């Protein structure tokens, strides 16, 4: 027993959370609610008590599984995942969450954290899948038909990516004989497959739509929790194994741009935030593609602050959904009167996402943009600058404006429940404190930081970019060019499998039907022809009613056999 403990301890905090998910089911309701909040907080303290090292090495046949690799990169992701889990579960106290959903939330966070700390690909794969399966219950817990269908589509993408990952790992293992999870690159055996798997999970363009399709269909706290883990786990995995892969720069640039357009025209404000999430992932993917120390620091710090402000924004929209029963821009407005605290926290999240000086996005995103500039990628640099101004549009202006400040739609609702306010307050506090004092976050990054965010030119240039973008919004609004919110949905790639394929099947079915009828009619004709001629041949005077000689029978049979053989091997 002690030997087992010595091998395993200290145990991967993600595994503790998964064990916690089982315990949470057994505890009485009230205790279980608080247990889900306290456990991640306790694990944060546990994480800080450990030195960077490889723990939990298990021999498995001839291979060693490293179940708990604590290095600079995994520690910062593990830490933010634990914070997100604690805040998400605190927020969920204000929502009517059943035990299944609570355990799913714990197991999901646990799977993601365990995967981050995995030192080998087998452990990584297993916990990636644990996270995928646990997370779908946060969508299904909405208990609507829409949510069920969206959850199924989500699961198909997640498991599909898992299978591709497994195929890549097997190829990699069979060629190299190594299961260590570290730098791979496209040239590594199985490298392309593994990149595709991580790419699906981090919502690369064209395989992104599982994110916008499923997340807004989850429960109120479910969406908040979902927003933190899967995609950032994939970003972590990409940063670990594909840093400096140039194609990622261009993929990331596309990712940073196209969701902005959708985020401006989408009516469901939680879906707006998932497009915005996608756009932020684009920045991180560009950073990984550039691969310099500054770019990777930028990606990691941006993932860290992004999880906080995205959760904060989704929390505020969740509170709006809880109180008003809708999250559609067309049905909201004027809520600042009755939900002033939620509005204030939302603005902090919006300012952080837009990277205003003194807010968290400012100190992280700029590292990626600066790194792109230093490496001479001027097109990418311009794209990222444009995407930054775009973020101000959808997250910075659109979300707070349409929910809280636009024309009063007559909702007279209560302020959000106190656990939600506390969770939002804590997230908002972190957004500001990181923005004002970035040094502690910088100290945790994988490489030493040689970057000063608060310089005169950087502050002024950023403010110029943002305020003139806001000016453009105001002018377009005043001269009524800015598109008013309209009910309706916008087509995205999910059209291909939700509508396109179905249409294809219906059409092909129609033609197949005609074809089938032709074949059937033909066959019936041929068969009656055969019967008729058989009747004639089998008549008293017909050929078949004669008694032929044995030799001719053998000749016939041999002939047939030859024909069959010929056809068989033709």
């Amino acid at each position: 027993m002690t030997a087992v403990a010595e091998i395993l301890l200290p145990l991967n905090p993600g595994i503790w959370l998964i064990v916690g998910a089982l315990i949470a089911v057994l505890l009485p309701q009230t205790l279980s609610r608080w247990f889900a909040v306290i456990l991640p907080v306790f694990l944060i303290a546990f994480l800080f008590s450990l030195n960077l090292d490889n723990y939990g090495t298990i021999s498995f046949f001839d291979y060693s599984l490293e179940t708990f690799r604590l290095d600079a990169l995994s520690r910062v992701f593990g830490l933010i995942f634990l914070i997100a889990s604690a805040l998400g579960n605190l927020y969920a106290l204000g929502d009517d969450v059943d035990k299944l959903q609570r355990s799913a939330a714990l197991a999901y966070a646990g799977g993601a954290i365990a995967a981050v700390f995995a030192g080998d690909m087998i452990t990584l794969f297993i916990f990636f899948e644990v996270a995928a399966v646990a997370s779908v219950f946060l969508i299904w817990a909405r208990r609507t038909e829409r949510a069920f269908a969206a959850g199924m589509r989500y699961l198909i993408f997640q498991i599909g990516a898992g299978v591709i990952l497994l195929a890549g790992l097997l190829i990699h293992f069979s060629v190299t004989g190594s299961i260590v999870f570290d730098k791979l690159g496209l040239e590594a055996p199985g490298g392309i497959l593994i990149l595709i798997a991580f790419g699906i999970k981090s919502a690369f363009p064209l395989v992104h739509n599982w994110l916008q399709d499923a997340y807004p269909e989850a429960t109120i706290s479910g969406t908040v929790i979902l927003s933190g883990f899967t995609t950032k786990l994939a970003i972590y995995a990409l940063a670990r194994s594909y840093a400096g892969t140039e194609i990622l720069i261009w993929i990331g640039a596309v990712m940073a741009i196209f969701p902005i357009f959708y985020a401006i025209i989408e009516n469901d404000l939680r879906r707006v935030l998932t497009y915005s999430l996608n756009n932020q992932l684009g920045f991180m993917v560009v950073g990984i593609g550039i691969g310099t120390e500054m770019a990777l620091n930028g990606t990691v710090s941006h993932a860290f602050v992004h999880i906080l402000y995205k959760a904060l924004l989704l929390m505020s929209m969740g509170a709006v959904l809880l109180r008003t029963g809708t999250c559609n821009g067309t049905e909201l407005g004027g809520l600042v009167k009755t939900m002033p605290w939620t509005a204030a926290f939302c603005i902090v999240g919006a300012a952080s996402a837009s990277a205003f000086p003194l807010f968290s996005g400012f100190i992280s995103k700029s590292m990626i943009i600066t790194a792109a500039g230093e490496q001479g990628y001027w097109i990418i640099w311009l794209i990222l600058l444009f995407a930054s101004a775009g973020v101000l549009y959808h997250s910075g202006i659109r979300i707070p404006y349409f929910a809280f400040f636009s024309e009063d739609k007559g909702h007279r609702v209560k302020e959000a429940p106190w656990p939600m306010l506390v969770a939002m307050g804590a997230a908002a506090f972190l957004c500001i404190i990181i923005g004002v004092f970035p040094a502690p976050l910088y100290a945790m990054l994988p490489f030493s930081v040689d970057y000063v965010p608060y310089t005169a030119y950087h502050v002024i240039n950023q403010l110029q970019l943002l305020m003139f973008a806001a000016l453009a919004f105001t002018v377009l609004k005043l001269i009524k060019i800015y598109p008013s919110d309209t009910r309706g949905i916008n087509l995205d790639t999910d059209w291909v499998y939700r509508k396109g394929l179905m249409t294809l099947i219906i059409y092909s079915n129609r033609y197949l039907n005609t074809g089938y009828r032709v074949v059937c009619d033909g066959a019936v004709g041929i068969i009656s022809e055969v019967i008729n001629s058989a009747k004639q041949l089998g008549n008293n005077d017909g050929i078949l009613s004669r008694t032929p000689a044995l030799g001719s029978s053998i000749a016939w049979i041999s002939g047939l056999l030859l024909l069959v053989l010929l056809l068989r091997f033709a």
Partner: protein
Amino acid sequence: MKNNVQENDKMKEGLHWFDNKRNIKRIIYALYVICAALFLAEFFYHKHAVFSFDTWFGFYAIYGFIMCVGLVIGAKVIRHLLIRRENYYDSSS
């Protein structure tokens, strides 16, 4: 607590700081002033050149403005092409 009572009173009257059109105008004027100040700030700080074009006078301000106008117009066009009724997907199943 006192604030809350005041808030509630205001609510009953149906009047809020943001209900007053003049206040909205004040915010918009404040934005104009801030933008003008930021544009004039171009004279007063040491530029840090990443490339060459980013040191052009007012580059960040002009780029931010033009790209955002383009963004909105682009989004309008895209919406025109992509929007469907809300139950578009429900009707097939």
